[in-house]
Each structure stands twice: as structure tokens, then as C-alpha cells.
């Protein structure tokens, strides 16, 4: 057991609470870690592309022009054109909206479902824990992508079903994480103290346990966003979910795959790079988000 001395551990400056402190702390985190700042900037760029994309692209992403088919990247077509003469740059930018929507929707869904299920399981134990555990175990018994394939194949080829399938396959991860965190804190001194202060169990769950597990969930959220995009792209690549001619990164890579062997690399390359960048950005974002939300990192 370590003994604690009288000397304060941190600097003497008191921390204010509230919004201003949060903003100041965010600035501090971004300043200290340029990689995090970079990923934030990239994320903002993606958001802009998603929101404004269709209005600012030079060409109509669906307009085909067989005369201009299979042209390499040039000044007129920055990313070249595909087999139907559509401008790839425009398609890549417009596809941002769809992919981001899928990612955000699935993550929000699974965070709500899995997070609350997990916290309840970890806090209450007993049958709640057992049932949620069984559900998680059954989902985890499948290779996750294969299960997603099965779900979308069964429910039908739509974007909604991709979101649902992605949420389902990520459920065990969130439920487990939330459960173990809630379990650890269930016996913590400050939870007992909260009971002594007169807080009922649901209040403790909502006001004491949930805010304390947010940092870890934050990291998980951004990692899952990246994974959700990869999942959706993968499903579209094998023909499930998004259907042509809708621009989506996965489908575009699939369409470009046939032309790689004949040397027209740009059709598959640029959407693939966009995919990579998006996932990379989300992965880096996770660490930055955790630093912002975790109060122990505040000075």
C-alpha cells in the first residue's frame, strides 16, 4: 500500500469547473500534441466535405459521359474518370456524406444500446448480467464480418441494414467495456459515499458511474467509427448494402478492382485512399478525445 504525504501532487493553480475550463483544456491538449491537432483538422475537413460536398464539387457525381471514360488524372479531372466517364474526384467527395452518416449512425446506435446494457449488467449483476452476457457471447461466436454479411443478406440490401448490422456486431465490445468499468466502480468508495448521501441506484448509474466511464468510451467510439466505415465499405465491396450508382467509397473500389489488372489504377486508388485517411483520422482522434474528457489529465 503506498503511503500519501502532505505535499500536493500537482501545481498550486486551482482548476475552475464549467465550460470555460473545458475549452481551455481542449486548447491545451491540442497545443501539446500536434498529431491530435492534425487529426482534429482532418476530421473537420471530412465534416465539411460531408456537409457541403454535393454543392461544391465540379461535376455531377452521377453524370456519365462515355466519351471521357477511363481517363487518367489530369487538370480537368483531378482524380481521373471511371468506366462510365464519371468524375472520380466529385464522386469521392460526395461519398463522404454517405460513409460518415453510416459511421456516425452505427456508432450512436451501438453506444446507446451497448453502453446502457453494459452499465446495467455491470452494476446490477444477477440475471441482467447473465442475459446480456449470453447475447454478447452469441454475437461473438460469429466472425463479425461474416455475421454482418448474414444480417444484411437476410434483412435486405439497404443502408439502414448496414447501420443495424454494424451496430449489432459492435454491441459485445461496448457492452463488455461498459460492464467491466461499471463493475470496477460499483464497489468504489465514492459510490458507497453517494449511497450514504441518499442517492438511489438509478441516479448513481446516471450521475456517478456513466460520467466516469466516458473517457474510455470516447476512445472506443472513435475507433469504432473507423471500423464502421471499413465494415460498410467491405460489405459494399462484395455487393451488399449500398448499390451502384450511389457513390460510396467501398463500391467505387469494387468497381475499380476490375481495372487494376489492366492498369487503370486511379478508379480504385482514390476512394481507397479516402477510406484510409478517414479511418486513420478516427483512430488518432480517439486518443485526443480521451485526453480532453478525462479529468485526471487536467492541470
Amino acid at each position, binding site marked *: 500500500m503506498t503511503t500519501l504525504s502532505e505535499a500536493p501532487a500537482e501545481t498550486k493553480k486551482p482548476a475552475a469547473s464549467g465550460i470555460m475550463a473545458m475549452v481551455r483544456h481542449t486548447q491545451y491538449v491540442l497545443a501539446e500534441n500536434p498529431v491530435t491537432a492534425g487529426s482534429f483538422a482532418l476530421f473537420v475537413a471530412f465534416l465539411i466535405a460531408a456537409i457541403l460536398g454535393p454543392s461544391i464539387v465540379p461535376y455531377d457525381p452521377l453524370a456519365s459521359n462515355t466519351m471521357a471514360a477511363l481517363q487518367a488524372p489530369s487538370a480537368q479531372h483531378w482524380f481521373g474518370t471511371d468506366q462510365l466517364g464519371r468524375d472520380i474526384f466529385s464522386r469521392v467527395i460526395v461519398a463522404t456524406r454517405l460513409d460518415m452518416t453510416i459511421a456516425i449512425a452505427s456508432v450512436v446506435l451501438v453506444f446507446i444500446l451497448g453502453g446502457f446494457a453494459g452499465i446495467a449488467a455491470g452494476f446490477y449483476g444477477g440475471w441482467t448480467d447473465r442475459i446480456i452476457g449470453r447475447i454478447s457471447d452469441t454475437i461473438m461466436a460469429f466472425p463479425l*464480418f461474416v455475421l454482418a454479411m448474414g444480417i444484411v443478406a437476410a434483412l435486405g440490401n439497404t443502408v439502414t441494414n448496414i447501420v443495424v448490422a454494424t451496430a449489432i456486431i459492435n454491441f459485445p465490445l461496448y457492452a463488455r467495456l461498459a460492464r467491466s468499468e461499471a463493475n470496477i466502480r460499483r464497489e468504489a468508495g465514492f459510490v458507497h459515499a453517494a449511497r450514504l448521501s441518499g442517492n438511489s441506484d438509478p441516479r448513481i448509474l446516471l450521475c456517478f458511474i456513466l460520467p466516469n466511464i466516458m473517457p474510455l468510451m470516447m476512445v472506443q467510439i472513435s475507433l469504432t467509427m473507423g471500423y464502421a466505415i471499413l465494415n460498410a465499405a467491405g460489405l459494399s465491396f462484395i455487393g451488399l448494402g449500398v448499390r451502384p450508382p450511389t457513390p460510396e467509397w467501398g463500391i467505387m473500389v469494387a468497381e*475499380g478492382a476490375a481495372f487494376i*489488372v489492366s492498369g487503370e*489504377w486511379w478508379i*480504385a*486508388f482514390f476512394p*481507397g485512399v479516402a477510406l484510409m485517411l478517414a479511418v486513420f483520422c478516427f483512430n488518432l482522434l480517439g486518443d485526443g478525445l480521451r485526453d480532453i474528457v478525462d479529468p485526471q489529465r487536467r492541470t
Partner: protein
Amino acid sequence: MLRTIGRRVATAIPSLIGVIIVTFLLTRVLPGDTASFFAGPAATPQAIAEVRKQLGLDRSLPEQFASYVVNLAKGDLGTSLTTGRPVVTEIAARLPASAELTLLGLFLSLIIAVPLGIVAAVRQGSWIDHTCRIVATAGVSLPVFFTGLIFVYVFYFLLGWSPAPLGRLDVFNSPPPAYTGFYLIDALVVRDFETFRAALSQITLPAITLAVFSLAPIARITRASMLAILAAEFIRTARASGLKSSTIIMTYAFRNAMLPVITTLGMVFSFLLGANVLVEKVFAWPGIGSYAVEALIASDFAPVQGFVLTMAILYVLINLCIDLLYSAIDPRVKVEG
């Protein structure tokens, strides 16, 4: 020892039951008329009625489930519409192709990622450490089908080192006699080096694609695990006792660090089996993944269902093996069973 194995096997049974129930349910949530799904888009009303009777869709749900399970026990996974052959035969024929690819990919990945992770942890801050961290972070961002395509473009189209991605063997060679179904092994067994070389050159690129995919999580967990173990108190005792560096790293640290890595292998396999499907499509590899994908395109539903079930059962068995391996290494597990 046998009791431990028995206990572990027993824990796999609820998973198998769950898998069977879920795959059964998946076939029942099809939008619209299930029978016409299985009968195919070109079926006549009589054919659809036939299928409906076959599937027992007019009976109650528990009865349907019972006949589903009975069929499974008989090894009946339905019939493929496009080929007309039983699904189970096709899957059995194609399984070795997928297995060979996945296992080779995993093997390559392990022999690179594990030493990389260990050295990165032992020599913190060195260029190997930085390489490891870059690999780990970037590796998870790469879509596996994209990496495959890039490899094809660079190594086949630009450099001409790899053959065309057209499957397990090119047209000039024929498969070796099927002892294991693994072309590499079978070719070596009969000393057919020509076929061996051909098979090897075909499998190289897809296996490397899979290896790159699983490199990142394995390297990351190995490095993290080694770092955590090297900071543990019993390592301090070992150092204070004057043990050699190599003893400390290999006998004391590595064996303990491998435990979380083995646990993670289960998750890695989950990703690998999924990535398998995508890689098979890129390289036209005749495994069960591409079987399912082709069936999907043709709206041929029975193979897809059979594929999901087979993969799930395989995965449960793989997890069981990983569990047993873990129990063999960690003596603490025997106590709790």
C-alpha cells in the same frame, strides 16, 4: 487434465447452440416470402410451393427449428440453385483453399509481428519501436481489399513479379493428389516441385495481403503486453537476482506476455475470417468466401446460409483450441476451471 479439457469443451456447447439458433432465425427474417427467396428469382409458382413444403414453412416455428436441426445433423445444408449441388459438398470441397490461405497468412503475420513487438518493447525509443508503432497504427486503417488491389497493381501490373490473380494455380499446372487439400503440402509430399512453385507463387500475394492485415493488431498487443510485463515487479526481482538479459526476456517476460496475445488471437481470427472473404474476391481465390459472394450476387440464398453457419462453427472450434492452448500455458486457469 482430461477434466479441464472436458470443461472447456462443455463451454463451447452453448456457443454452438446459440450459433445454430441465430442462423436459423436469420433465414426466417427475410423480407417478403422466404420460400421464393430460396426458390430463386426465376422459379415457377409450383417450384416455390415445393420449396415451401421442403422448408416446412407452413408449420410452427419450433417444428421448423426441429427439422432444421435434424437436417443439420444429417449434414444437409440445402442445395445451391446456381450449381444444383448440395451446399455441404461444395463447402467441403472449397474449405481447404480458404484454410490454406488463412493459415499461411496468419503464420507470416506471427513470425513478423511477434518478434517486432518484443524487440520494440525491449528497445523502447529505437527505430524498431517507432516502426512497430507506425505499423500498428497505420495497419488498422488499411482496408484489406484496398491493400490487395495495390499489391496486385504494383507486383503484377508494374513489376510483373507475381502471376495474374486468377486462383490457386495457373492454367499450366494441375492440382496435386489431395491428401490434405493444401496444395503446398500435397505438392511437397509427392515431391512435385514444379506444382509447388506454381502454387506458391499464386498464394504469395493474397497471403501477404492477409498477413499485412493481421500484422497490426498482433504487433500492437505483443508490444503492449511485453511493455506491461517488463514493468512488472517479478521482473524487477529477476533483475535483482542477476539473471541474464536473455533469460529475463525469454523465459520470464515472453512467456507471461504471450498470454494476452493468445487471448487476442481469438479476436484476430474473427477479423481474419472476415478479411478472407474480401481477399478471396480480389484474388479470385476459389474458397468458401468467394463461394458465398458469388451466391449473393445470384440471389442464391442456401449457400450464403451454409457459409455463415460453417464459418461460425469453425470459429467456435478455433476459439476452443485457443482456450485449451491458454490453459496449457497458464497454470492459474486450472483452478477456476
